[in-house]
């Protein structure tokens, strides 16, 4: 019950990031919003695992955290006009 409330709160936070991702004026705003949205996703996967009392999906959290880091750093190089 208390974890279901937590998942609703996570949805609220994700909606805020989604608004910023859609309307952010610059590309850097969108990158920050996407990174935060993926952090919320990892948090939600863990909360879902606690809600169902199954550890099956916890691997997804590790993988998404890694891929989010790779994507954010690649986008940052892109914004910088990277070599």
């Amino acid at each position: 019950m208390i974890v279901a409330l937590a998942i609703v709160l996570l949805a609220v936070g994700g909606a805020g990031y989604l608004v910023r991702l859609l309307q952010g004026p610059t590309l850097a705003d969108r990158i920050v919003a996407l990174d935060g949205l993926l952090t919320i996703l990892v948090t939600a996967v863990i909360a879902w695992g606690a809600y169902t009392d199954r550890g099956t999906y916890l691997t997804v959290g590790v993988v998404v955290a890694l891929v989010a880091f790779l994507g954010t750093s690649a986008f940052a190089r892109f914004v910088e006009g990277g070599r």
Partner: protein
Amino acid sequence: MNEIVGGVLILGGAAFAAIAGMGQVRFGDLFTRMHVATKPSTLGLLLVAVGAMFRISGPGAVSLLALTIGMQFLTAPVSAHLVGRAAHRHGDWDRAAAVHDDLSDVDEL
């Protein structure tokens, strides 16, 4: 008992994540939004993962959660630093609104 402690921790972490999402909408500048995106989200992830350690039973759950926490705490500052540096160099921020800019003579646009 474990269920209650874990539930309270998960609820607190989710509240931090919700505050981070609301700050994304309310804050008006790129660097303040980066500040509110990096710190409360990471703290929320830490609290939710520690709370989930109390609730998820099964082999490997605690070590996977610890791995997620370590990954996030290692990568979040690095990616925030990269995005901040790139945005500053590219000029994707309100230069006129800054009170002080230590990098103004370093970064050539």
